[in-house]
Protein backbone atom coordinates (compact mmCIF):
# COMPACT_ATOMS: atom_id res chain seq x y z
CA UNK A 1 0.00 0.00 0.00
CA UNK A 2 1.28 3.41 -0.90
CA UNK A 3 0.85 6.37 1.33
CA UNK A 4 -1.88 8.13 -0.61
CA UNK A 5 -2.24 10.69 2.17
CA UNK A 6 0.64 12.72 0.76
CA UNK A 7 -0.46 14.70 -2.28
CA UNK A 8 3.14 15.26 -3.41
CA UNK A 9 5.56 12.37 -3.53
CA UNK A 10 8.83 11.21 -5.03
CA UNK A 11 9.09 7.46 -4.91
CA UNK A 12 10.76 4.46 -6.50
CA UNK A 13 7.67 2.30 -6.73
CA UNK A 14 4.98 2.54 -9.38
CA UNK A 15 1.73 4.43 -8.76
CA UNK A 16 -1.91 3.85 -9.67
CA UNK A 17 -3.65 6.60 -11.60
CA UNK A 18 -7.05 5.39 -10.41
CA UNK A 19 -5.94 5.41 -6.76
CA UNK A 20 -4.48 8.91 -7.07
CA UNK A 21 -7.59 10.28 -8.77
CA UNK A 22 -9.69 8.59 -6.07
CA UNK A 23 -7.59 10.17 -3.31
CA UNK A 24 -7.97 13.59 -4.94
CA UNK A 25 -11.72 13.22 -5.32
CA UNK A 26 -12.05 12.17 -1.67
CA UNK A 27 -10.87 15.67 -0.67
CA UNK A 28 -14.04 17.43 -1.82
CA UNK A 29 -17.43 16.70 -3.31
CA UNK A 30 -17.27 20.02 -5.16
CA UNK A 31 -14.81 18.65 -7.74
CA UNK A 32 -16.57 18.44 -11.12
CA UNK A 33 -13.60 18.34 -13.50
CA UNK A 34 -10.32 16.48 -13.18
CA UNK A 35 -7.41 16.98 -15.57
CA UNK A 36 -4.47 14.62 -15.41
CA UNK A 37 -1.13 14.26 -17.09
CA UNK A 38 0.68 10.93 -17.16
CA UNK A 39 4.23 10.81 -18.46
CA UNK A 40 5.61 7.42 -19.36
CA UNK A 41 8.72 5.97 -20.96
CA UNK A 42 8.34 5.56 -24.68
CA UNK A 43 9.31 2.59 -26.77
CA UNK A 44 12.98 3.41 -27.28
CA UNK A 45 13.39 1.05 -30.20
CA UNK A 46 12.08 3.62 -32.67
CA UNK A 47 14.97 5.76 -33.79
CA UNK A 48 16.99 5.83 -30.61
CA UNK A 49 18.56 2.86 -28.90
CA UNK A 50 17.94 3.26 -25.19
CA UNK A 51 17.83 0.28 -22.86
CA UNK A 52 16.45 2.17 -19.90
CA UNK A 53 16.34 5.57 -18.18
CA UNK A 54 17.73 6.23 -14.71
CA UNK A 55 16.43 9.11 -12.63
CA UNK A 56 18.43 10.98 -10.01
CA UNK A 57 17.01 13.56 -7.60
CA UNK A 58 18.36 16.09 -5.13
CA UNK A 59 16.68 14.25 -2.28
CA UNK A 60 16.51 17.16 0.11
CA UNK A 61 15.11 19.59 -2.42
CA UNK A 62 13.08 17.83 -5.14
CA UNK A 63 9.98 16.94 -3.11
CA UNK A 64 10.13 20.34 -1.40
CA UNK A 65 10.18 22.05 -4.82
CA UNK A 66 7.19 19.94 -5.90
CA UNK A 67 5.31 20.90 -2.74
CA UNK A 68 6.01 24.57 -3.48
CA UNK A 69 4.65 24.07 -7.02
CA UNK A 70 1.44 22.54 -5.66
CA UNK A 71 0.97 25.44 -3.25
CA UNK A 72 1.60 27.97 -5.98
CA UNK A 73 -0.89 26.21 -8.29
CA UNK A 74 -3.54 26.26 -5.56
CA UNK A 75 -3.00 30.03 -5.22
CA UNK A 76 -2.75 30.81 -8.93
CA UNK A 77 -5.64 28.80 -10.32
CA UNK A 78 -9.27 28.32 -9.33
CA UNK A 79 -8.74 24.69 -8.40
CA UNK A 80 -9.61 22.60 -5.37
CA UNK A 81 -6.78 20.07 -5.14
CA UNK A 82 -3.65 18.92 -6.95
CA UNK A 83 -1.43 15.87 -6.66
CA UNK A 84 2.05 15.29 -8.11
CA UNK A 85 3.84 11.95 -8.07
CA UNK A 86 7.27 11.44 -9.66
CA UNK A 87 9.18 8.19 -9.72
CA UNK A 88 12.94 8.21 -9.26
CA UNK A 89 14.24 4.82 -10.27
CA UNK A 90 15.27 2.95 -13.41
CA UNK A 91 12.45 2.76 -15.94
CA UNK A 92 11.97 0.77 -19.12
CA UNK A 93 9.72 1.22 -22.15
CA UNK A 94 6.09 1.57 -21.07
CA UNK A 95 6.80 2.38 -17.43
CA UNK A 96 5.00 5.23 -15.72
CA UNK A 97 7.23 8.16 -14.69
CA UNK A 98 5.18 11.13 -13.54
CA UNK A 99 1.55 11.89 -12.75
CA UNK A 100 -0.15 15.24 -12.19
CA UNK A 101 -3.81 15.28 -11.13
CA UNK A 102 -5.81 18.48 -10.71
CA UNK A 103 -9.40 18.77 -9.50
CA UNK A 104 -11.54 21.88 -9.90
CA UNK A 105 -15.19 22.85 -10.04
CA UNK A 106 -14.80 23.57 -13.75
CA UNK A 107 -12.54 22.20 -16.42
CA UNK A 108 -10.74 25.35 -17.62
CA UNK A 109 -8.69 25.95 -14.48
CA UNK A 110 -8.10 22.19 -14.07
CA UNK A 111 -6.46 22.02 -17.52
CA UNK A 112 -4.52 25.25 -17.04
CA UNK A 113 -3.13 24.19 -13.67
CA UNK A 114 -2.28 20.67 -14.83
CA UNK A 115 -0.29 21.89 -17.83
CA UNK A 116 1.38 24.62 -15.75
CA UNK A 117 2.39 22.09 -13.09
CA UNK A 118 4.10 19.69 -15.48
CA UNK A 119 5.77 22.56 -17.35
CA UNK A 120 7.08 24.11 -14.13
CA UNK A 121 8.06 20.74 -12.67
CA UNK A 122 10.43 20.29 -15.58
CA UNK A 123 11.92 23.74 -14.95
CA UNK A 124 12.05 23.86 -11.17
CA UNK A 125 12.35 20.37 -9.71
CA UNK A 126 15.91 19.01 -9.34
CA UNK A 127 15.50 15.65 -11.05
CA UNK A 128 17.75 14.41 -13.84
CA UNK A 129 17.45 11.58 -16.29
CA UNK A 130 20.27 9.53 -17.77
CA UNK A 131 19.68 7.31 -20.79
CA UNK A 132 21.42 3.94 -20.97
CA UNK A 133 22.44 3.27 -24.56
CA UNK A 134 24.66 0.72 -26.37
CA UNK A 135 27.32 3.46 -26.56
CA UNK A 136 27.23 4.20 -22.84
CA UNK A 137 25.25 6.41 -20.52
CA UNK A 138 24.14 9.88 -21.49
CA UNK A 139 22.55 12.61 -19.36
CA UNK A 140 19.52 14.30 -20.86
CA UNK A 141 20.04 18.04 -20.82
CA UNK A 142 16.83 19.26 -22.38
CA UNK A 143 13.36 19.41 -20.93
CA UNK A 144 11.17 19.53 -24.08
Amino acid sequence: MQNLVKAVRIQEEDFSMEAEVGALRAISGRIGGIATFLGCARDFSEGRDVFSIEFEQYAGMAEKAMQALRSEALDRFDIIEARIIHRVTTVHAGDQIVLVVVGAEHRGPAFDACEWLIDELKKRVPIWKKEMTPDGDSWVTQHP
Partner: protein
Amino acid sequence: MEAHMSVKVLFFGSIADRLGKRECSLDTDKAMTVSDLVAAVGCSDFEPLLLAVNREQISDMGLLVQDGDEVALMPPFSGG
Protein backbone atom coordinates in the same frame (compact mmCIF):
# COMPACT_ATOMS: atom_id res chain seq x y z
CA MET B 1 36.58 40.11 11.50
CA GLU B 2 36.83 36.74 9.84
CA ALA B 3 35.55 33.51 11.28
CA HIS B 4 36.05 29.95 10.26
CA MET B 5 33.36 28.68 7.92
CA SER B 6 32.46 25.19 6.74
CA VAL B 7 30.22 24.65 3.73
CA LYS B 8 28.82 21.43 2.29
CA VAL B 9 28.90 21.33 -1.52
CA LEU B 10 26.76 18.87 -3.51
CA PHE B 11 27.16 17.90 -7.16
CA PHE B 12 24.46 16.30 -9.31
CA GLY B 13 23.97 14.58 -12.63
CA SER B 14 26.58 15.26 -15.29
CA ILE B 15 28.49 17.57 -12.93
CA ALA B 16 28.99 14.79 -10.38
CA ASP B 17 30.14 12.50 -13.21
CA ARG B 18 32.58 15.10 -14.55
CA LEU B 19 34.10 15.80 -11.14
CA GLY B 20 34.04 12.16 -10.11
CA LYS B 21 32.43 13.05 -6.79
CA ARG B 22 28.98 13.78 -5.44
CA GLU B 23 29.92 16.10 -2.60
CA CYS B 24 32.74 17.81 -0.79
CA SER B 25 33.27 20.02 2.20
CA LEU B 26 34.77 23.47 1.82
CA ASP B 27 36.50 25.14 4.76
CA THR B 28 37.65 28.73 4.66
CA ASP B 29 38.44 31.68 6.91
CA LYS B 30 37.45 34.29 4.33
CA ALA B 31 34.09 35.68 3.25
CA MET B 32 33.05 33.85 0.12
CA THR B 33 30.38 34.48 -2.50
CA VAL B 34 28.61 31.68 -4.38
CA SER B 35 30.73 32.68 -7.37
CA ASP B 36 33.92 32.24 -5.28
CA LEU B 37 32.68 28.83 -4.16
CA VAL B 38 31.95 27.71 -7.73
CA ALA B 39 35.51 28.71 -8.67
CA ALA B 40 36.97 26.99 -5.59
CA VAL B 41 35.42 23.66 -6.58
CA GLY B 42 36.62 24.06 -10.18
CA CYS B 43 33.24 24.58 -11.86
CA SER B 44 33.58 28.15 -13.18
CA ASP B 45 33.39 27.00 -16.77
CA PHE B 46 30.43 24.65 -16.24
CA GLU B 47 27.66 26.11 -18.34
CA PRO B 48 24.72 26.06 -17.89
CA LEU B 49 24.94 25.75 -14.11
CA LEU B 50 22.02 25.91 -11.69
CA LEU B 51 22.61 26.67 -8.03
CA ALA B 52 20.76 26.07 -4.80
CA VAL B 53 21.64 27.28 -1.32
CA ASN B 54 20.01 25.34 1.48
CA ARG B 55 17.69 23.66 -0.99
CA GLU B 56 16.35 26.88 -2.52
CA GLN B 57 17.35 27.73 -6.07
CA ILE B 58 19.24 31.04 -6.34
CA SER B 59 20.38 33.15 -9.25
CA ASP B 60 22.52 35.79 -7.50
CA MET B 61 26.10 34.53 -7.72
CA GLY B 62 27.16 37.41 -5.48
CA LEU B 63 25.30 35.98 -2.50
CA LEU B 64 27.58 35.45 0.52
CA VAL B 65 27.91 31.88 1.66
CA GLN B 66 27.28 31.33 5.39
CA ASP B 67 28.80 28.80 7.80
CA GLY B 68 26.84 25.55 7.65
CA ASP B 69 25.27 26.26 4.25
CA GLU B 70 24.51 23.44 1.83
CA VAL B 71 25.30 24.59 -1.70
CA ALA B 72 24.28 22.49 -4.70
CA LEU B 73 25.79 22.71 -8.19
CA MET B 74 23.32 21.31 -10.68
CA PRO B 75 23.00 20.82 -14.44
CA PRO B 76 19.66 21.77 -16.05
CA PHE B 77 16.82 19.66 -14.73
CA SER B 78 15.36 16.92 -16.89
CA GLY B 79 12.61 15.39 -14.79
CA GLY B 80 9.08 14.70 -15.89
